[in-house]
């Protein structure tokens, strides 16, 4: 297995959790009872990394993705050797440079020049090697004018740039990067990416922890998706990133569904509990003075009520849609007595409160005849051509004169996702046409 740069075999990392009181009592009880060893052993444990096995081939670039707290950074520290796995094995071949915290060990009182030397020695270079690379490091960090100033006078960007410059000039065989590419300005970020590309060309192994999924797709040969300390997916970056984003959407969907549900419980508790979801009167019979200033709420005096509103995608209740998907808004309505004058209306608002679209059955010249008992109204949008963002819905039942039976203001939320990061609100179906003398791909 000489072609594997990193081999992780069934590695787990346990962190112990102490109750506050327990931590407080450790020294006393350790001294009194002399049970130092047992006091230091874990009682309640948390698996930061749980039975992870993976190999990284020499010269390949691995992307580690996953939610916050999924164990990415811990795994990286295990590879770097900063912490040891509780069980299992981690083997790494060659010199490691870990870009986990840039400029760790910089002393604020002394100059950038002296810090470069000390930091270089810390990262395993000899003084001779640093002297040889010093100019290159300073040039890379773009700090020629400030290199003799104390580091405490540096801006955070300058600090990071110097730290990055030293770390990448260590000339490692294995480079570990933890979400540090958001360093400096646009120009410097590009330079960092160039440096990575150079590392790749020179056959170095890179492990990258990042939330920039686009970067994983573009630069990595392989991706690993961690969740709760376990490997959830591994292999082709596009496939793993897709599986991960799908999972994130599912979680988002649950969160949106939950918050919508809470909102509706709050406003439907008519008269029983005071409702505090809006800065305007809600849940009473009168509409607010200025309807469009109301943030959220429900008002109207019946007899028609909208009992349930669901958003659906392909027959399933959904809160996450992709641009261009079909969206169905389903209203379950009921009335306590026969009505002959009724209008159903729908409006879609974006997060800034701009009305993206609004319509009702009266505008579209449906003539109400009669409504008794319960019924269902479906509003179908075949292509939801909205740009990415969060949107909210108004739904209403009222008379043609505008007397409100039941008005639901911004009580329903859905999110539109899109691969294209276009601007605005509405995305008309479109295409580009170029004349033959414009070469574009």
């Amino acid at each position: 297995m000489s072609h594997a740069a990193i081999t992780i075999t069934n590695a787990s990392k346990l962190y112990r959790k102490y109750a506050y009181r327990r931590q407080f009592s450790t020294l006393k009880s350790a001294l009194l009872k002399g049970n130092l060893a047992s006091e230091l052993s874990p009682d309640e444990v948390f698996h930061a990394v749980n039975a992870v096995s993976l190999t990284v081939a020499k010269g390949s670039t691995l992307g580690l993705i996953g939610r916050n707290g999924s164990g990415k950074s811990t795994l990286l520290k295990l590879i770097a050797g900063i912490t040891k796995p509780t069980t299992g094995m981690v083997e790494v071949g060659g010199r490691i440079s870990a870009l986990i915290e840039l400029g760790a060990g910089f002393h604020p009182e002394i100059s950038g020049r002296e810090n470069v030397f000390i930091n270089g020695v810390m990262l395993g270079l000899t003084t001779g090697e640093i002297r040889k690379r010093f100019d290159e490091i300073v040039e890379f960090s773009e700090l020629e004018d400030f290199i003799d100033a104390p580091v405490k006078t540096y801006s955070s960007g300058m600090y990071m740039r110097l730290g990055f410059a030293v770390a990448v000039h260590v000339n490692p065989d294995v480079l570990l990067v933890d979400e540090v590419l958001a360093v400096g300005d646009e120009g410097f970020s590009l330079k960092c990416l160039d440096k990575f590309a150079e590392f790749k060309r020179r056959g170095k192994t890179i492990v990258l922890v990042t939330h920039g999924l686009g970067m994983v797709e573009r630069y990595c040969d392989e991706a690993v998706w961690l969740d709760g300390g376990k490997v959830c997916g591994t292999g082709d970056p596009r496939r793993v990133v897709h599986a991960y984003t799908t999972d994130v959407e599912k979680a988002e969907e649950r969160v949106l569904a939950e918050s919508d549900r809470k909102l509706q419980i709050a406003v439907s508790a008519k008269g029983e509990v005071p409702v505090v979801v809006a800065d305007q009167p809600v849940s009473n019979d009168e509409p607010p003075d200025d309807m469009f200033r109301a943030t959220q709420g429900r008002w109207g005096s019946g007899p028609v009520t909208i009992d349930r509103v669901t958003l659906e995608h392909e027959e399933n209740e959904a809160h996450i849609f992709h641009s261009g998907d079909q969206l169905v808004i389903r209203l379950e309505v009921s009335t306590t007595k026969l009505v002959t004058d009724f209008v159903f209306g729908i409006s879609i608002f974006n997060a800034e409160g701009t009305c993206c679209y609004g319509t009702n059955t009266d505008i579209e010249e449906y003539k109400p005849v009669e409504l008794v008992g319960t019924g269902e109204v479906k509003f179908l949008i075949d292509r939801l051509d909205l740009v990415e963002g969060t949107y909210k819905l108004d739904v209403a039942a009222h008379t043609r004169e505008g007397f409100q039976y039941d008005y639901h203001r911004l009580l329903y939320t859905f999110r539109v996702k899109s691969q294209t990061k276009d601007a605005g609100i509405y995305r008309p179906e479109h295409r580009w046409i170029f004349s033959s003398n414009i070469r574009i791909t």
Partner: protein
Amino acid sequence: MLSNLQRLLRYRSLIHALVMRDLKARYRGSVLGVFWSFANPLLLLMVYTFVFSVVLPGRFPGIDENYALFLFCGLLPWTWFSSSLTEASNSLLANGNLIKKVLFPAEVLPIVAVIANMVHFFLALPILFLALVFFASRLPTVGELLWFPVVVAVQFLMSLGFGLGLAALTVHFRDIKDLLSNGLTLWFFATPILYPWTMMAERGPIFFELPPLGKLLMDANPASHLVISYQEILFWDGPYGHWKWLLFTAILSVGMFFIGYALFDRLRDSFAEEV
């Protein structure tokens, strides 16, 4: 263990760089700069001279006229010892980002604390020797001075042992920081620095054939043998006679070093999590 010690040798350029960093950073931004390393002991000497020859004269018959000089011989090494321990015990916590974020040999940190304070001790020595030349009734002989580096070496090893052990334990028990500062005060008074050791040796009840309690305490205290050695070499007349106790202290120091290092090694893996 041996391979670990071998590794320590490989870190010497790192230790060197960090000691230099400490020394440079300490006085950076002050007007006098590194001159403070001379000025501090000089001012200290002046304060003690004033207190014990003007405010409280006649405390210690026999050495009264040169009391400040006597005090200085013991106080300088003690300052090295106590600040080494204080700084070493706090060194892992103070450099938490190195332990947590960089692959870094943690033992380097307490070692750097001991060495940096040793350098300060060395920088203060010229003041001590100048004071000897001006105030002492006699100058130490070459034969006595040859013992000086031996005493320094023994103290160095002992400080390392204590420093490593304390550094490792402080990570787990933050209480040590407070215990240590009070413990060191007690230790300071238990060590014959402010008073000649003969005074301590005479104190305490005498039961049957047992030696006085004060002498027992002093014999069991390795710091007192170091301090007495410095005083004998630099201050007292006559040839250096305390070498047997120094030998005992040297053996103790080697033991202390290995215990401290073993403790450090044992707890090493927990540092990145506990710091």
